[in-house]
């Protein structure tokens, strides 16, 4: 911790929370975490629905050389994340999508690019000699030293991405579930797909700044996948996803303030616990419901 007093957890919850927000860096961590959690959870909901988790992973890996390169050039890592993630999103959108054979070829190409991107990031970190501990925070996240200006930038870009999502949300849902019918209805399926990838790139770039490139999925996939286990209503699912994203971020930040392990570990651990817990709970209730349906069907 940055202070000389080690924070102590007490049984007084109000006091604990007050202590949590005693330092400005912690307040900014919560502000930035909140923005990022909402954006990643909402956009992640559509990513999981469209089964584009692989694209999301690619974007997050590509963000790493972007951030490392930006630091090497002496500018903020944020610029690197946004620039690389958005350009990568446009490139993925340009690759024609396929299933089966074409799909496996596409994944081979993307896998190759991912490895190259990680290597480039490593190179940029090595080239920047004074950059000692930085590679950890680029890969696994950090919540120290988020400036007010950074919070404002995250908020502005995040609001923009969410606004786009609100406008295209319904046709995007239609196109994601039922591409052929959506196209026959005159929905610009292709343009929507490109727009969504760019929005996804923005979400990944935002989340990377808190969770690091490798732990983006704690905020992008886990809340959305868990929400889709909990409900099959699109609106309710989105709300669950955002709620879980906030829960994961706040708990992760809070725990890491008191317990002395990295924030990325705690955020991801909370996310993992939520996911596993909900899986077990819904499987149990699902099996019970199926049994009840069978009994009803068997009854004369």
């Amino acid at each position: 911790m940055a202070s000389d007093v080690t924070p102590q957890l007490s049984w007084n919850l109000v006091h604990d929370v007050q202590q949590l927000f005693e330092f400005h860096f912690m307040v900014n961590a919560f502000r930035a975490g909140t923005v990022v959690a909402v954006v990643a959870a909402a956009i992640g909901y559509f990513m999981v629905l469209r089964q584009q988790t692989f694209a999301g992973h690619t974007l997050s890996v590509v963000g790493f050389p972007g951030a490392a390169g930006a630091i090497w050039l002496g500018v903020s890592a944020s610029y690197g994340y946004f620039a690389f993630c958005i350009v990568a999103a446009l490139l993925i959108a340009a690759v024609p999508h396929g299933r089966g054979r074409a799909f496996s070829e596409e994944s081979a190409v993307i896998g190759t690019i991912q490895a190259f991107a990680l290597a480039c990031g490593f190179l940029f970190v090595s080239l920047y000699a004074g950059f000692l501990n930085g590679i950890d925070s680029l890969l696994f996240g950090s919540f120290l030293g988020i400036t007010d200006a950074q919070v404002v930038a995250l908020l502005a870009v995040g609001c923009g991405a969410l606004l786009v999502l609100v406008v295209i949300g319904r046709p995007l849902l239609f196109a994601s579930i039922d591409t052929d019918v959506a196209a026959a209805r005159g929905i610009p399926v292709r343009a929507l797909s490109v727009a969504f990838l760019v929005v996804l790139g923005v979400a990944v770039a935002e989340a990377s700044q808190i969770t690091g490139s490798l732990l983006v999925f704690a905020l992008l996939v886990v809340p959305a996948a868990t929400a889709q286990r909990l409900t099959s209503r699109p609106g309710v699912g989105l709300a669950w996803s955002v709620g879980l994203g906030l829960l994961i971020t706040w708990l992760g930040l809070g725990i890491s303030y008191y317990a002395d392990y990295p924030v990325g570990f705690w955020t991801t651990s909370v996310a993992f616990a939520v996911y596993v817990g909900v899986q077990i709970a819904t499987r149990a209730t699902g099996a019970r419901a199926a049994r009840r349906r069978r009994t009803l069907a068997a009854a004369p």
Partner: protein
Amino acid sequence: MKRAAGPVIRLRGAEVRLAHATVWRDVDLEVGDGQFVAILGPNGVGKSTLLKAVLGLVPLAAGTAEVLGRPAGEANHEIGYLPQRRSFDPSLRIRGVDIVRLGLDGDRWGVPRPGRASRDARRRVAGLLELVGATAYAGRPIGQCSGGEQQRLLIAQALARKPSLLLLDEPLDSLDLPNQASVAGLVDRICRDEGVTVLIVAHDVNPILGYLDHVVYLGGGGAITGVPEEVINTENLTRLYGAPIEVLRTSTGRIVVVGQPETPTYHPDLAHHEHPHGL
């Protein structure tokens, strides 16, 4: 929903070429208001392409296509289209009722605002679910519905905007025999009671044969069109399929096509059912 009199679909000397090969040519087709018409023929002969030509999604290399009194593609908002078998991923966690609702207003931008319009939309969706008999399972994730249940929900989706023309691409494909019979009956009911013209693609004619006003047999680059009794005979079908096919008449006067390729698997326990299937 009523239009000026005249055929709902009119193809004149239509020809479609895909990748520089002729799919079919010299196709003349006229589908009257409220008719139930099937496009039949072996796999790969361009049945789905014919539906896409009617939608204007595939351009004609020759001839003309007029749909609902306008050039093909200009009246698509009045057409309900159900593409060839989309199987929903079993893990897709979206309810059947949401799928139907998307058919109603899924192409609008922005979020739906609560209010009278939203209540009307919900009532319309409930009515559609009632019509296709899907009310009981519409709240379940569609990935967990059976093939027949999914097909009913998709038909409800296609009907959401009160289309005057319904294009169905192999809606009976991969359904078991009782479900084929009941979905065929449902489509006929929609055609007669709701006054919707239906153009259906099928490779097995038997489940729908009793309901059809006209059939279009595609094969060998061209098409034979007419009422089922005239078109469906042993010579025509054997020539179109290039394989021996027999057309039989049951004691009640029903036509049955036997020896047709790609008929569903023979079900011994259902062989005495009202839709007998050959080898």
